[in-house]
């Protein structure tokens, strides 16, 4: 009787073990989001960089969520995306009160198992245990159907103390501008009611792209001697073009978190008409002036000749 009981228990344990490691269980392995940091303590007024990672990412092509933090204990100052595995950000990563919101895609799915999504720099604000947690996490499989994967997030507790803890954020030694990127001008009914816009996305492997600026200039002149004026202003892809006649050179520059800049441009889709080109008018004006000068000078010479007595000619 006792031996039979032991046998039944052992059989049950074996069965549970088999089910736990069965292929079916492995296929529903959840995507796990977690934090990485050099230390778990910081003093009030000190800064600490906290990285956000995820694992079990093979064949995942889209992920997003929210990082929540208690601003009275540890407040996020800025976000960095350098060396992120995410190629294109749908939203953020951006600060929004007591949260960092993020959502992005990896076209054709991630080929690795785990990777860094972004990092945030936190500053100690008040003594206590600051718990950083995840909310609204999502991850989707690269199967063409947008199949949602199970997700989980491990929180991080930072001990914020009144005494300094030696926490410091390394100075960004980034002297390399963002990588060259391309601009595409498109006019689609689906966006901006059919008006033309420009799309762009740069990568920066060091400190990450911080923001973009755009400038449109109509270039006037002849041959290689062309000039134009225009002001830089903040931009976001897709950026509505101010010159809907597409006669301006469109310039976009990506600025990374360290302030390095990379500017690229696209030539105008359409050329200026001759009467729109200031260079042409300058040429015409020059021609007229020269003509007038020549004519006036000839007239004056004639007048002088008429006034000169025949005997002196």
């Amino acid at each position, binding site marked *: 009787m006792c031996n039979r009981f032991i046998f039944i228990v052992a059989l049950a344990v074996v069965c549970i073990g088999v089910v736990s490691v069965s292929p079916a269980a492995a296929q529903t392995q959840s995507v796990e989001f977690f934090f990485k940091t050099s230390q778990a303590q910081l003093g009030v007024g000190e800064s600490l960089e906290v990285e956000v990672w995820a694992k079990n990412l093979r064949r995942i*092509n*889209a*992920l997003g969520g929210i990082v929540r933090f208690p601003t009275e204990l540890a407040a996020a100052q800025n976000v960095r995306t350098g*060396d992120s*595995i995410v*190629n*294109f950000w*749908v*939203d953020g990563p951006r600060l929004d009160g007591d949260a960092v919101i993020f*959502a992005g*895609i*990896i*076209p*054709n*799915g*991630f*080929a690795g198992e785990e*990777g860094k999504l972004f990092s945030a720099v936190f500053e100690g604000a008040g003594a206590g245990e600051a718990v950083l947690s995840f909310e609204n996490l*999502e991850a*989707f499989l*690269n*199967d*063409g159907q*947008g199949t*949602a994967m199970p997700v989980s997030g491990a929180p991080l507790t930072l001990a914020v103390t009144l005494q300094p803890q030696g926490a410091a954020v390394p100075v960004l030694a980034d002297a*390399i*501008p963002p*990588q*060259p*990127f*391309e*601009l*595409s*001008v*498109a006019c*689609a*009914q*689906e*966006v*901006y009611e059919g008006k033309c*816009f420009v*799309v*762009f*996305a740069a*990568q920066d*492997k*060091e400190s990450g792209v911080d923001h973009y600026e755009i400038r449109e200039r109509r270039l006037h002149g002849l041959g290689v001697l062309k000039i134009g004026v225009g002001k830089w202003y903040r931009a976001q*892809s*897709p950026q509505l073009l101010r010159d809907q006649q*597409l006669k301006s050179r469109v310039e976009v*520059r990506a600025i990374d978190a360290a302030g390095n*800049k*990379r*500017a*690229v*441009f*696209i*030539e105008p*889709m*359409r050329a200026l008409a001759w009467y729109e080109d200031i260079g042409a008018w300058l040429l015409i004006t020059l021609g007229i002036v020269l003509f007038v000068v020549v004519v006036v000078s000839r007239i004056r010479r004639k007048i002088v000749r008429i006034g000169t007595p025949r005997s002196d000619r």
Partner: protein
Amino acid sequence: MRNVLTALLIAALVTGAAIPVRVSRATDYSSSHFIIKDPVVEFGSGFGTSSGFQLWGALGQPSIGFTTTTAFGLQSGFFYFLGLPAVPDGLGASAVSQTQINLSWTDRSGNEAGFSIERKTGSGGTYAVIATTTSNVAAYSDSTLSAGTAYYYRLRSFNIDGFSSYSAESSATTQSAPPPPGGGGGGGGGLPPPSGTSVIFRGRAYPASYVTVLKDGQIAGLTKAGPDAMFEITVSSISAGIYSFGIWAEDIKGYRSPTQTFITSLVSGATSVISGIFLAPTIATDKTEVKRGNVIDIFGYSAPLANVSVIISSDEELLKKTPADTAGAWLYKFDSFEVSYGDHAARSRSVVVNDISDFSKTVTFQVGTRDVYGQPPTKCPKRADLNADCKVNLVDFSIAAYWYKRALSAAFALIEKDRLNGDGLINLQDFSIMAYYWTG
């Protein structure tokens, strides 16, 4: 003589005025059953009546888009055929940077609905549609090209009646040397990236196929595989760091392989080599539905003389094998009697010596009571191509990003329903679908 001519002219005028042609006005014809609201020209045959009406006109859509699925437009009256639009001429191609060629042409037609632009790489390439414009457009910028490459273009106008003839061909070669600071286009200004850091990709695709390399989701290079399906492509002048590379190929019929992805950490100044790449075969079927007992052709391209395994998903998986020929083409004639009625799927993979490819895309078909020869699978992505340019890339991403967390317009809601997840919103799941169909 002059008098004779004058007399003849007067006679012609009088005769013409005497022909009983009468243009009726609205409501001239009516009955208790119908009223003709549009003018009808009748040649002296009397008034139409309700007991025996005759249709003198016809209803037609005078231009493409006059009637859509969301807006019905009716315009009847004097019926006319648009006729084919005139051929555009004066096509010019001008390379303005390493990656951009600007096209311009003269619009000679007044009745076109738009222009269809085609491109081929090199004089020996095959033309494929790269863009479709709306009417009254005379310029286009092709800006995702490879440096130092000759491209050929042609275009034609179209309307509801069909296409015009092709324009004359025009070609341009993109710039090959990096532009000097402050000049050129596409990458001018700022410091150049550190030199010497590069990555070489080597592997096997399909004979004479075009192989595209994506770097972090954007096209970084394009090459043509040899007749033996082997290819090599170098991506250079990039900075160190971790990159996500993707490679896909298009066979000579225009079918695309799935994208094979790699995560690579590049060291500054070093050249990394990724070799042994073996792209999955392309796959398609000749029918969307096959009568049970009939044969359905499953075919595609792979490396020459590869051993292709075709896996048909049913109640049980069926494994079939067929060899590719010297041109890389393979074909398996599957007897549908082997599976039950219902929906099935097929995919394939190839083996060459000791190399095994990944699985191909999955194609679906139905075993039923009739043969339905479907249209050949479109060369364009089935979904996520929001601007209908046969690509899924940053432009589509930007269009979706514009609508992210916004109420969709009625027009875009139709596009979302047709090409994304159809839930009436743009959310992260839609972007996941887009990321799957990404072509760069």
